[in-house]
């Protein structure tokens, strides 16, 4: 399928912080694409540039067929955006929010009313659409904000940390709604720092760290190609000779001792296990325990960045604060 987003060598600096440093990205039409990374990695800054909110320092970005730097107006007509803090006009009712949004995109009064009704239906806003948005719960407000992002049937919908602050039930509902949208043909790009969210939701994702894409692929690809499965085994007796035995095997990528346990990284666990058992039986090694653990995206993150996502969170917080400050007056 054709690429809806093409980003090449994108760069953005703020005073004292190089937030995005040469980021490349391709998103195909109809994909649900995730940008995963710790706070301060440059995800939000990237999204702001792609949605015309921030000027691009260097590099090129084409979104829905229009160059972001040269023709921001065309980009704005084709994209929807749901920001991190939301964007619902709180003193106005949900319906007023939707009507205004539709009219700002050029809909006639009648078309705007029709579209608002469709969105109230689609996102189940009916029970509270005529109340001021200031009275909404977190989940209700998020739904309204997503409806606002969808008002003009955008080709691409960008969502910045859409589930942050939602309870598990509302998060699950939102995931369902996003999957339904994707099924309807909308390309969706979302940022998240939740591993499970990226894993469960994204067709493909890019891991972003210190302003660059450090890995890109489907969650499954990333996990098998980059992290691999982990086999943990505890031999009866000394583990070191077992490590020496297994490390050179062709199906073992890495073998490490952790106390009396031996941890093997293998590209494909289901393939490796029978072969592993053959080798161990042949050498007369008896096992106290054996476990196969599939990798998580955290393992992928650890492998490509050298640190765990949670540690990166702490380190990135300050850079993120700087990226958020000030007007470029």
């Amino acid at each position: 399928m054709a690429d809806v987003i093409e980003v090449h060598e994108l760069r953005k600096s703020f005073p004292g912080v190089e937030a995005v440093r040469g980021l490349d990205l391709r998103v195909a039409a109809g994909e649900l694409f995730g940008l995963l990374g710790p706070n301060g990695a440059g995800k939000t800054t990237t999204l702001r540039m792609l949605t015309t909110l921030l000027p691009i320092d260097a590099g090129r970005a084409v979104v829905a067929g229009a160059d972001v730097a040269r023709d921001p107006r065309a980009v704005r007509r084709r994209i929807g955006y749901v920001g991190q803090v939301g964007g619902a006009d709180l003193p106005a009712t949900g319906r007023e929010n939707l009507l205004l949004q539709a009219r700002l995109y050029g809909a006639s009064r009648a078309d705007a009313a029709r579209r608002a009704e469709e969105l109230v239906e689609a996102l189940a806003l009916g029970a509270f659409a005529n109340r001021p948005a200031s009275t909404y719960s977190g989940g209700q407000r998020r739904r309204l904000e997503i409806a606002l992002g969808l008002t003009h049937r955008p080709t691409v919908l960008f969502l910045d940390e859409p589930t942050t602050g939602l309870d598990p039930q509302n998060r699950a509902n939102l995931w369902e709604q996003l999957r339904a949208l994707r099924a309807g043909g909308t390309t969706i790009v979302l940022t998240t720092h939740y591993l499970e969210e990226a894993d469960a939701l994204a067709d493909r994702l890019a891991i972003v760290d210190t302003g660059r894409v450090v890995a890109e692929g489907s969650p499954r690809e990333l996990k098998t190609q980059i992290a691999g499965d982990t086999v943990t085994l505890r031999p009866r007796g000394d583990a070191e000779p077992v490590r020496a035995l297994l490390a050179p095997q062709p199906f073992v990528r890495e073998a490490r001792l952790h106390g009396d346990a031996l941890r093997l990284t293998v590209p494909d666990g289901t393939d490796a296990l029978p072969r592993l058992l053959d080798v161990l039986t042949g050498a007369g090694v008896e096992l106290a325990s054996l476990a196969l653990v599939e990798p998580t995206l955290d393992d992928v993150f650890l492998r490509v960045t050298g640190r765990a996502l949670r540690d990166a969170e702490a380190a990135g917080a300050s850079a993120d604060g700087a990226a958020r400050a000030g007007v470029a007056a």
Partner: protein
Amino acid sequence: MRALTQIRLLWWRKMLETIRQPVWVIGGLTTPLLYLLLFAPLLDRLAGSPAFPRGEILDVFLPGLLALLAFSSGMGAGWGVIAELQTGVVERLRVTPTSRFALLLGGVLRDVVVFLLPAVVVVAVAVPFGYHAHVAGLAGYLALLCLVTAATSAWSSALGLILRDIGGLAAVVTGLQLPLTLLSGVLLPLSLAPGWLRVLAHVDPLYYAVQASRALSDGVVDADRVGLGVLVTVVLTVAMLAWATRCYRRVAA
């Protein structure tokens, strides 16, 4: 045409917000009425003094009072802008194909209405107390004062977009409010002031609008007060609107 529709839609958004908080509407009226009822009577003894040579206190006092109302009606805009930055409304609207000027003008025009309606009520109340309205002059200086509100509102909005912080905005706006108000001679004409103060007043843009309003209120159209006042106010309004539009284009978050 498209831009006009956007301006109207965004203005109405802010109007609905105002109408739903009637406290603000009442607040806009009480301040000038209290000045009229509790402060203007103090001036009666001054009739015939250099400030009021013809003894017509309200004719001098009312245009100044309305200028004060015009100035303060626009000043609060920045607070609203910061609130909308924090709830993401500004960002959401900036991703739509809406003109940045329309985003600004929605709030500015609301402030103009919020000035004009109480101003008309105050004039209506002042007439029975002895205000001699020169109708064309009154219309003229109300129009001029609408520009003062627009310029102040744009100024406050721009500061809100740049400072993004209520504390910082309050420090700048309220810090400037008092000197600008005092130097403009809104409450008592600067004809009472010593020479150095009268010279200093010329750095205050509001001073020119007040001078022009007093002249127009008397039905006088002259170059040194009305001409200059209109010129300063128009230039200032255009400059502030341009600056604030630029800030809407550039706001970072």
